[in-house]
């Protein structure tokens, strides 16, 4: 085997001369594709920033179907990539199986906890960022009804909804939060047409701010909201620029920072659980020139107040995944 390995490595190096050297990091995107303007794209931006700052190279792979996860992971580990970062909770089970086979390779998984000695699990406090988005929606909504459109119906996305509802009700206690999910399979992350339909349905029920936590599906939600002249809230990446002046804000989840830091740490990647919360800049609401005129001074003040309250522990945002219930809705 050692002869074959070295032969293979030799072949790889000669045939792809200019290609990657052996200890390069690798990034695997989940279904939905690299350029989904949301979750995967945030991961891509982080990797690109690492390339710009260090001049290094990395390997990347896009998933085409659920069945490929294990092969993709093993292939990257076999080919010597280190560390291997994967974007998405769906890799959790497979990683639990694969990681023990490659004790010298470091793995990082985003949005999921995998308890292995060579795995860093990166989780975000989406409920805190969503709470701030909810506060802004509460200030912006005139009808008292706002909408939430999730991608795949999983506890992780309920966590977004729950934080959003809690933040909204801190401003409008009598308000109403509509909730819809696109589907129950990973295809729900990439269905902008259905996202648009759900948005129109919520608008007809009176929603005037809609928060999309749905990966690529959110593009359709934001488009429908812009077409109907109401406000929307983007997710994961900063999506304010998609429809300038019509996207209230984006709940940015700094997946890019997570990828960047994992790549920077390289083979010294610290195993264990890494929590990216509001205080650490892991989640936030995006305010830039595209939504500056939508964000009033009072709104800004309310957000800062809420941020301070969360930091001091005065407000505890409920994490849906701890008990699978949401007190706010």
């Amino acid at each position: 085997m050692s002869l074959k390995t070295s032969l293979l490595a030799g072949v790889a190096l000669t045939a792809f001369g200019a290609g990657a050297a052996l200890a390069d990091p690798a990034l695997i995107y989940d279904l939905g594709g690299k350029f989904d303007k949301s979750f995967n794209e945030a991961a891509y931006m982080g990797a690109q920033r690492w390339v710009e700052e260090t001049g290094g190279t990395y390997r990347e792979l896009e998933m085409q179907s659920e069945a490929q996860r294990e092969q993709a992971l093993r292939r990257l580990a076999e080919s010597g990539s280190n560390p291997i970062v994967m974007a998405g909770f769906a890799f959790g089970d497979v990683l639990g199986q694969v990681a023990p086979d490659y004790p010298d390779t470091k793995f990082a998984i985003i949005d999921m906890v995998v308890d292995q000695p060579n795995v860093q699990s990166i989780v975000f406090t989406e409920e805190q960022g969503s709470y701030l988005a909810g506060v802004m929606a509460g200030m912006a909504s005139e009808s008292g009804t706002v909408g939430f459109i999730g991608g795949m119906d999983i506890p992780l996305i309920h966590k977004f909804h729950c934080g959003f509802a809690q933040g909204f009700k801190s401003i409008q206690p009598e308000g109403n939060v509509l909730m819809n999910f696109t589907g129950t399979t990973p295809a729900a992350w990439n269905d902008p047409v259905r996202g648009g339909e759900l948005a129109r349905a919520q608008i007809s029920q009176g929603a005037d701010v809609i928060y999309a936590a749905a990966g690529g599906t959110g593009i359709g939600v934001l488009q429908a909201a812009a077409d109907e002249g109401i406000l929307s809230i983007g997710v994961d990446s900063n999506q304010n620029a998609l429809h300038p002046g019509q996207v209230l804000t984006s709940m940015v989840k700094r997946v890019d920072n997570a990828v960047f830091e994992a790549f920077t740490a390289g083979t010294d990647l610290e195993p264990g659980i890494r929590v990216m919360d509001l205080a650490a800049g892991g989640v936030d609401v995006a305010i830039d020139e595209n939504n500056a005129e939508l964000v009033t001074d009072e709104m800004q003040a309310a957000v800062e107040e809420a941020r301070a309250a969360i930091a001091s522990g005065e407000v505890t945002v409920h994490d849906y995944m701890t008990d699978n219930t949401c007190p706010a809705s």
Partner: protein
Amino acid sequence: MDKMPKWADVILTPLISLILAMGISALVILAIGESPWTALTTMVDGALGSSYGWGFTLYYATNFIFTGLAVMVAYHAALFNIGGEGQAAMGGLGVALVLLYLPLPHWALALPVAMLGAAAFGAAWAFIPAWLQAKRGSHIVITTIMFNFIAAAVLSYVLVNLLRPVGSMDPASARFPAETALPRLSELAAWVGIAWGRNTPVNITFLVAVLACVLVWVLIWRTRLGYEIRALGKSERGAVYAGINPVRITIVAMLISGGLAGMMAINNVMGESGRLVLNAVEGAGFIGIAVALMGRNHPFGIFLAALLFGFLYQGGGELALWTSIPRELIVVIQALVILFTGALDNMVRMPLERLFLALRRSGGQAR
């Protein structure tokens, strides 16, 4: 006889088709500014250049052998079963139910039981289109492809609502018990002292697939049922005149076909992933059509064609990993091979046939 020699029909035609497909693929790769030569060496090295590559190539080939045989059996009865995708997906459900709910202490016991489960579910899924075709004349092409969509919907419902373990977010079943895991060929190789194909998914199912090739050959050309299937395929009126019941043979041929497609699940669901995931079939049901056409509906040809498509799948995966050729173009390359070997078959065969006949005629005159 106005025919070209058999070797030319069986070997030369697919080979020329393949070379044409590769030529056009090379142009496509050139057009996006990549080197076709690097792409080719990447594919060959990645799929055949190491025992690791071979392990994956043979794993994919195992899938395609089953779906190819499935298409072939139906084809001999003049039925075009394009529902292999759905039948294999349902076969996966059969495997999962058997392994999750029956106490099976050892893989040697689990394998035959899982094969039964897979074949039964695949065959059951093929039964309704078969019955509709035989009794109602609903065209099998339409019904089988519609059943693919129904199978996908049924599977996602079952995975999300019934089989998903409590607390899991991923729509996949629980892991099957460890003692039912099929031995990998790498483990067998290690057992006889050879280091081969470490961490590759090819497992003992490959040997089952080879056995299935032999059995299907025996069935079609050496049994009474096979004769009836072929007779029905050649001419339904002739078959009826000979006392063959077309309803019965149509349904039996489709049950065998669906059962073979379903058996693919012991490779990918039981042998590889060890749990049932969405989209586990990964298009192998459709590839089976190309494999059967290219293999001239003969088990040996199907075996070779399955190897070729196994190479294309694994080599394509390596391309995605090592080069910057986008994944969509890799699908284009695979599609070109299917187009040339499957659909445009006559484009190569007819000129070739004319060439051979012309050669023979001039040869005859010279003598």
